């Protein structure tokens, strides 16, 4: 059990495990570094001095109880929330991300927990929202957008057939597929997935897991937020646990058990500080 509980030590704790190591070995600098990020809403410190990094081809699982600050932290990286303090580095260079457009120019795509779909528009319009394909004379090329969306859906959710109806009339899972399609259409290098499978059925969840493995193999770095601890264990190379706006610890998946991670989430303590009584009391 070699947990890495000290968040300030994260750069030295670059993943060396078999699954994440291949990519990390050739890229000494992380593709994303969040340094001492702080966000507060009124008196609430939603994110309180968090540092986190991500390497190419790595899946970083981000877990924590409700209100731990996971979404807020990721919204900082995707430009949806400006931080009160802290610094973002992409491939070692300090960048400023003021809005979602800035994030996109750095290859950051986000699947928001709220999905962020325009309910009145159809699936292709949502996938290409803000980046519509246009043909000559600047007219929208709806046929090309529909075609690209159909191709994507073939991979994501082959039973998806509602390409011409407003997404308001789709099921929760279908809507989630649209949100995922939007994030992967544009060849992101950094992908933020905030509960990407929350509304999906078993078959569709399996599809998304497969997709995450593919993207990972392509060298894309992924932040994966999920409340499903098995999902996180299956897919992540490292797992970061948040509690009350702070990082409890960042650990290699191969170094911990699900029980230990659960203990970190619930008790807000790194694994080596958890007593066996506390561990037992969780069951």
């Amino acid at each position, binding site marked *: 059990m070699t947990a890495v509980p000290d968040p300030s030590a994260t750069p030295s704790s670059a993943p060396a495990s078999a699954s994440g190591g291949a990519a990390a070995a050739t890229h000494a600098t992380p593709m994303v570094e969040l340094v001492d990020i702080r966000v507060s809403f009124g008196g609430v410190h939603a994110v309180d001095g968090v540092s986190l990094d991500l390497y190419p081809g790595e899946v970083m699982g981000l877990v924590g109880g409700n209100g731990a600050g996971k979404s807020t932290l990721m919204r900082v990286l*995707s430009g*949806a929330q400006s931080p009160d303090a802290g610094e973002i580095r992409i491939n070692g260079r300090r960048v400023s991300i003021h*809005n*979602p*457009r800035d994030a*996109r120019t750095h290859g950051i795509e*986000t699947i*928001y927990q*709220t*999905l*962020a*779909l*325009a*309910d*009145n*528009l159809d699936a292709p*319009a949502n996938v290409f*929202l*803000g*980046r*519509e394909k*246009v043909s000559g004379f*600047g*007219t*929208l090329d709806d*046929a*090309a957008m*529909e*075609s690209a969306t159909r191709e994507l859906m073939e991979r994501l959710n082959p039973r998806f057939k509602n390409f011409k109806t407003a997404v308001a*009339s789709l099921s929760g899972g279908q809507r989630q597929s649209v949100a995922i399609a939007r994030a992967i259409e544009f060849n992101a290098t950094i992908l933020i997935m905030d509960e990407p499978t929350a509304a999906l059925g078993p078959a569709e969840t399996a599809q998304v897991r497969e997709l995450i493995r593919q993207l990972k193999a392509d060298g894309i770095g992924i932040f994966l937020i999920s409340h499903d601890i098995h999902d996180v264990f299956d897919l992540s190379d490292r797992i970061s646990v948040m509690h009350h706006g702070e990082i409890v610890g960042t650990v290699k998946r191969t170094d911990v058990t699900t029980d230990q991670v659960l203990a970190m989430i619930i008790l807000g303590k790194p694994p080596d500080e958890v007593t066996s009584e506390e561990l037992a009391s969780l069951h």
Partner: protein
Amino acid sequence: MQPRQRRSVGGFSRVIDVDTRLIGLIFGLAVIWIGFNIASDGTFLSARNLWNLSVQSASIAIMATGMVLIIVSRNIDLSVGALLGFTGYTMAMAQTQWIPQGLGLGLDHPLTWVITLAFGLVLGAILGGIQGFVIAYGGVPSFIVTLGGLLVWRGLIFQYAQGQTIAPLDPTFRLLGGGPQGSLGEFGSWALGALACVAIVIGLLYNRRRRASYGFPVRPIWALVLLGAVAITVVLGGVWVANSYPWPGALAAQFAERNNIPIPPGGLVIPTGIAYPVLIMIAVTIVMTHLAERRRFGRNVYAIGGNPVAAVLSGINTRRTVMLTFAVMGILAAVSGAVQTARLNAAVTGLGVQNELDVISAAVIGGTSFSGGIGTIPGAILGAVVMQSLRSGMVLMRVDSPMQDIVVGIVLVAAVGLDALLRRRTT
């Protein structure tokens, strides 16, 4: 029985790929027209009345296309009537005083009307844009900003007009208002109709070919032919009606005398054709539909209305987009201002008073929803025609003006209520 019927209408509209609401609106209009025609012993559907109806609908319909985009993006513009009045009054000043005195061009110089119109449109864009700027970047609700705008623009007219009416206007400018001379004439109208038919056929086929080339489902052949046939019938029918309305006898006689044409027994019949305001309305409809459905700008407007947060997260510049919708609305108010002053051959201080209510009603009857994200340009045009049909029909029936307002008010609420009811049942 009720549900089955509704389902079959919905299924039908899905197959031919036309909005259910648009079909409902067309049926509603048909009921109004046939009802008034029976009640008026055939006067309502006479060429003369329909031609007048088309001209009377034009100025409200032009502005309603812009109001659709405003309401779709969850805003409102209460200032359009005052903006129309202000730009109309300013254009009248420009052609009667500023251009003749400043540029030395007379009231009948061929450039006068062009400069006047360009000036009016730019002014409309700027004033609308200023309101849009305060709304989008200043964060003041559009209801408040445009209510203020209504008072300011109307106040400005009274301030510098001092109750004066400006008349007469430039003779070429006047043609924008319609009338026998301000119309396309027989040949021009048929030529335009033929052109429109060709465009319809090419458009339908192109669209189908394009979808087929991607392997997407397309309309069945019968639906395509039906749709094309209906569209062509409407176009040619419209031209036929416009051409069936002859110039008034006295005017035709004057014209014959001036051009040394012998007057045949029974009087000279000169078909009027499509009036210029209607032509402007058609052009505005095409441009605005293109903007709304085939441009990024329009797509972004609908996205903002559907989910403002999602629009921002998608990287859409929502502020700029909202500001632009108000600038577009300002331009359209100026277009209608030109049409109305030209039609009156005068600028009066009360120009456009309460037009905002007609414009908003037209958009709403046409299916634009205040919850945002829903509404079409063709729907708004039909909405304007429905409103004007009610008014014109009631005039024919000698219903007095207060009673007309009462009926229009009830129809407005009933139309939106019926729509909400149907929507709740179908979803």
